């Protein structure tokens, strides 16, 4: 395929998707997903028997899918949720992470549960699937005033500056943002839990060969325990650039997927 022809692969990475894919101390892309991709690249090189060039292209939530579609990016190593609509446009690897959407609020606001949000202003990041999720909740009767910020940092700023009462995003991303805040204790999660979301690496649709390769590498890692090691490194230990520790143990759901790798979204 094209990677063979060009002798190069283009990896899409995020810039602030902690700890999956973000800019480290030297503004170089680092993260959990990038470690996984490294293995995939190694596998491709082994298969081809030659070195390939690796290009990194930064992507954001609103352009990652079009960029996969138009071929600018071969594989996105971020934290992208796998779902049915997206599957019509692109393909996903077996799940590499399982998260749940959650509400982050200011502790001082006194909100206790999602139902308290009725009629309130909430924020989600443009292009993330939390937008659709919030809209869904709204039509289901929660009646939210949804605003969309340009990126997670601005969404977070909307929350902390009081423009929005709550920020809806995947729990792991919120944990990252909260950990980076000057005083994490001022922020609190609402207890409500929602359907699980399966993350995967994302690449172009209808390339069975490539998908098989990616899934193969990931399954091998999961079987050998390498995957769990990588998880520990990024989720349980201090990570760059500020050496904070997310302290986010592997969920039961993910353990289950590690035991039985799958790209199912059910």
């Amino acid at each position, binding site marked *: 395929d094209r990677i063979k022809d060009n002798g190069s692969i283009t990896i899409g990475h995020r810039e602030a998707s902690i700890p999956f894919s973000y800019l480290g101390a030297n503004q170089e892309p680092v993260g959990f997903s990038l470690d996984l991709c490294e293995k995939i690249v190694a596998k491709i090189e082994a298969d081809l028997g030659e070195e390939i060039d690796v290009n990194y292209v930064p992507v954001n939530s609103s352009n990652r899918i079009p960029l996969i579609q138009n071929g600018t990016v071969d594989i996105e190593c971020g934290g992208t949720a796998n779902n049915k609509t997206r599957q019509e446009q692109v393909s996903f690897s077996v799940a590499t992470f399982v998260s749940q959407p959650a509400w982050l609020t200011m502790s001082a606001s006194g909100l206790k549960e999602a139902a308290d949000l009725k009629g309130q202003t909430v924020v989600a990041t443009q*292009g993330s699937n939390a937008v659709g999720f919030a809209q869904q909740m709204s039509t289901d009767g929660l009646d939210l005033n949804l605003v969309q*910020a340009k990126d997670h940092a601005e969404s977070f700023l909307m929350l902390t500056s009081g*423009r929005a009462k709550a920020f809806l995003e995947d729990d792991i991303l919120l944990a990252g943002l909260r950990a980076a805040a000057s005083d994490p204790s001022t922020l609190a999660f609402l207890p409500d839990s929602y359907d699980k979301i399966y993350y995967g690496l994302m690449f172009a649709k209808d390339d069975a060969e490539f998908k098989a390769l990616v899934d193969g590498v990931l399954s091998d890692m999961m079987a050998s325990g390498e995957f769990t090691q990588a998880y520990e490194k990024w989720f349980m230990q201090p990570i760059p650039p500020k050496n904070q520790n997310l302290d986010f143990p592997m969920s039961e759901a993910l353990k289950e997927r590690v035991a039985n790798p799958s790209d199912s979204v059910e």
Partner: protein
Amino acid sequence: MFDVLFQRGFDGRLYLEWLLSGLGWTLALAFIGWWIAFAIGVLVGVGRTSKSRVIAALSRLYVEIFRNIPVLVQMFLWYFVLPELLPTGLGTWVKQLPPPWGAFFPALLCLGTYTAARVAEQVRAGIEALPQGQEEAAAALGLSQLDTRRFVVVPQALRLIIPSLTSEVMGIYKNTSVALTIGLLELTAQARQISENTFQTFGAFASATIIYLLLALVAYRLMLWIDAKYHIPGTSPSKPARKPLFGLFGKRGAA
């Protein structure tokens, strides 16, 4: 290609309705923003040519600040920083305006004040392009400085710059798209949202683009009409001073 417009989004509305609501915000921003820009622009532009040093310097300061920072950055400052500078009560009230008003007003102020700086420069250029003799003649007739400006200088300067104001009108309506960065769902944002929901990028963007083109056409025709309406009888419409700097479709006067 455009069949996407007739599909329904999660909220049960046609995507066409999404686009039209985006168009509504775009138009509201552009239209109201323009009058803010025009009012401030004329005042500051006249201030720029004032004989009073203080007024001239203040006007200059305004222009330099507001036109030399990218709209994108100004948008951010209006949205996130301004409420923090206001007294706490007012700031909180601003921040808790229900959407989309919470984004609309900062965007409006941002575009209005930014465009005003550019209008002010045009007004100044128009005033400076007037023959020296006009002010002299007014002075020689014993008109006060204020009357000279009001009855002689500004009416002529404004007529002179209608073509370049056209470009500012176009500018403000195009800059409305920057408001999407603070979460206002105007036309471009809606197009993007549709494309994200349906992945029919081409159809969504093409529809929005066509709307923008039509809008530009309308804005341009409107300005031609205004130009014709305020055209001074007996002066040639293509005098070199009346630079059709940003004439859009074909030659001026072809309308």
